[in-house]
């Protein structure tokens, strides 16, 4: 069936509009956006909260200043006291353990360290913590760095040299999580959603035989498919733009923002074409969605060992990696084009209307 290009374009656009109407009317898109917001916010709140449990440097100076450490020692010049003070902790020195115990009973100190004199034998220190799970683990966390420094000074006295103890640096938990989990997730999730969307849209037409009605209109099969693919693609792209805008509003610095968006767009487009291929091959939603979810599992597994995988690419572009640029995005564009050509060549034969 041939149609004039302009008629076919108009008819194609009518399908695009119908697709958009269906996802806005049914509030599907609201659910999709809610899921993404929920997953992103929840995982960041959770992981950043959780990681900070293991990250003493993320604890504020104020919280440290309120922690009082009692050290029982015969040597008031012990380097341990200096390291503790360097860590912004309040230190009281005691010559007698009984005095320190009394201070602990009065709650004048929160934690007590009993340090035996250094005889070049292993130093067996005793630490007395309050019997409260949360508080005790908090104290342990804060004391870790000063104690490590003390351990290194003891090693040095015993002729053991430890390198890289004075490397300058900042705790990178938040940075790492933001650029390698949150931003890639927000850029790739719309692609995942759009793939699902196109499968539903196509398999519903195939299962309820409404594709025949569409086909009898002055439309070629390829126009129908192209319209459905385009509709899903725009939805994905709009979400990516929305996420990037939100990230910028939160003052999160994203380098190469245009390339990040372009990359996300090609990945979404490729995924949509592959999903459409699945739906037109298998004809029903049940099997298509199943194969699609398996495909996502496989793709995620495989991509975790490939250096140029989507997640890493988004991370590198967003952090302004020197060696990553338009050439890498072009590779994804090529993959998309190949997928698209194969799809339009093969699908027509698959769908017998």
């Amino acid at each position, binding site marked *: 069936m041939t149609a004039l290009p302009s008629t076919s374009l108009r008819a194609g656009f009518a399908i695009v509009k119908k697709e958009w109407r269906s996802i806005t009317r049914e509030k599907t898109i609201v659910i999709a956006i809610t899921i993404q917001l929920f997953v992103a916010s929840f995982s960041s709140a959770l992981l950043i909260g959780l990681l900070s449990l293991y990250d003493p440097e993320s604890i504020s100076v104020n919280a440290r200043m309120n922690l009082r450490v009692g050290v029982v020692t015969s040597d008031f010049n012990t380097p341990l006291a200096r390291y503790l003070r360097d860590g912004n902790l309040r230190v009281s020195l005691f010559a007698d353990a009984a005095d320190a115990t009394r201070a602990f009973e009065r709650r004048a100190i929160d934690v007590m360290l009993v340090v035996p004199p250094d005889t070049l034998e292993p130093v067996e220190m005793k630490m007395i913590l309050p019997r409260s799970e949360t508080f005790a683990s908090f104290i342990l966390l804060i004391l870790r760095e000063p104690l490590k420094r003390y351990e290194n000074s003891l090693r040095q006295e015993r002729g053991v040299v430890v390198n890289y103890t004075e490397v300058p640096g900042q705790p990178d938990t938040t940075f790492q999580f933001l650029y390698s989990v949150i931003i890639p997730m927000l850029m790739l999730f719309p692609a995942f959603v759009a793939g699902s969307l196109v499968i539903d849209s196509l398999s519903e037409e195939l299962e309820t035989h409404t594709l025949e009605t569409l086909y009898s209109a002055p439309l070629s099969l390829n126009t129908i498919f192209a319209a459905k693919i385009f509709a899903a693609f725009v939805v994905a792209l709009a979400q990516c733009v929305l996420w990037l805008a939100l990230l910028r509003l939160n003052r999160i610095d994203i380098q190469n923002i245009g390339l990040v968006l372009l990359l996300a767009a090609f990945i979404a487009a490729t995924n949509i074409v592959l999903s459409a291929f699945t739906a037109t091959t298998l004809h029903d939603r049940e099997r298509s969605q199943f194969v699609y979810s*398996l495909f996502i599992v496989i793709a995620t597994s495989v991509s975790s060992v490939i250096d140029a995988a989507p997640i890493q690419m988004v991370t590198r572009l967003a952090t302004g990696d020197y060696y990553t640029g338009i050439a890498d995005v072009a590779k994804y564009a090529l993959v998309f084009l190949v997928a698209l050509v194969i799809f339009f060549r093969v699908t027509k034969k698959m769908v017998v209307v």
Partner: protein
Amino acid sequence: MRNILTISKRELTRLRARVGGDARATFIAFALGALVLAWFTLQSPPTIGAGIYRVGVSPDAPEIRDGRFSIVILDRATGVARLNQKAIDVFVDGAQVLTRGDDKSLYAAGALKRYLEKRETARVNAEFDLAHAFPLRIEVNYFDAVNAAQSFAEMLATPTPALQSTAAPASASDAAVREQIREAASGALPQIKSLTDRQIVVPSLTTPPNPFGQVILAFLFILPVFLVSVFFTSGFMDEKTNRKLTMLLSAPITPFQIIIGKMLPYVTFSLVGVAVIAVATRGDPLLALAIFAPAVCFIFGIYLIVPMLYRTFKDTTFISMLATSVTTAYLITPAMFSGISDLAYMSPITLAVKMYRNEPFGLQEYLFAATPLVLIFALALYVSTRVLNEEYLMGFRPIHRKLADAIFLIINRDHLSASIFVLSLLLIPLVYVAQLIALAISLNLPTTLMIGAIMGVAATIEEVAKSAGIAVLHERGLLRSTRQMLVLAFLSALGFLAGEKGLLLVTLSAVSQSRIAGVLFNTGLLPVPLAAHFVFTSIVCLLTTRFRVRYPFAVLVGAFAHALYNLILIRGIQ
């Protein structure tokens, strides 16, 4: 029972027709391939932040093997030039680490520092004897402040646990150090032992390893369940699109039998999967079954609701997606805190983590994880049996109408008061989930806006939960008088409060030692919140029934009053 098996057989025939024929072999191969691949990937838990930093190293620097760093070998001059050019983030020149001073460079150095520290510990351990490599051993004791002196004397009188197990007194704490080296190398989760234990720690060995590994491994059990769930939901949808459900419902068979029958093959498959995965990962299959059976039921319970509400394919997909993400969050989140807080036992995955660590757990912990899951499953079953009728399932109505119809079908018209009380009580878990989602999303807002927004949304959710049943009764003309409405509003408030406090009690009994307990229990006398709940619910119901205000607006007014009350309460406490 026979009816159930007949339905199961029918479901299997349907499934066989779906994946049958030539496609079957390809299908199975594909599924197996995916599982094997996922399994291999999970052998080494994925690195968060793969390839995020570029690190230049001089030829004499130590080898860096970590997925986060992409390594380039450079001589000193080129290294410094590349660093200033921003082509690399940090340059390791022998025993020295050079940075550029900007944020990204310092983050890279921070990450590298931790990596190198670990490496240095391993090197020192390999090159020196134990006494030189680990010269500091700390015995950790937990005392109550009240009789610290007595505890101190007792501590000095009894030898440390390590001493008892070691023959030579010269290596007093060596055994403990060796144990920690082994633990650090095996990548076990960090553990905070019981507060009555005395344990020996070595500062450089306390670096906590990646806590996600075992949680992800435990999640492997759940993954196949999510994958087959699409067939389960489709099972119902097929019946609907093919109009076969009408036939089924007219047969001498109860909705309960239909649901269980259709669920049975998938639940069986999932449980077999759990046992197989347990064997493959060297876990105990029986223990794994005990741990995951409630979770499997819970997931299918949630998925059972999806086709009941569905209108189009897209809806089914997205409601399923929402169900998957919320369920995953519920199961994974608490497990991340295993060993840190007892609240972690909310999730059966925590128990699985314990299983892999060969640590015992008691019946109480098991019940704490399993009971809520089984209860939600039972609730989903009950609701589904009530709404499983042709008129409800085939209707194409907006989602809020569908929900209203479902509420009407759940209510027992002969016992209105009891129904309203139980409805409010049973909605509590849903209210909590909805509030949790709202809370998570509100974290994106600026702090000042966030508190207002979350209080408003939380109050709205609660008001809907308490008044929806009464509003539905009013709509169907089942409310006779304002007095009856007020009585129902009171019962609804009572049910809600009972559910709220009940849930709190269950949670607190498990975490009674934590500090949260004190804060949560300090909510004042019960009559005050009861009166408050009653007043707000009455406002919504009165506005809807007497003043003909549209329900959404009535809810907003009630929620506004509720939020205001909460705000005053918080101000008062401050």
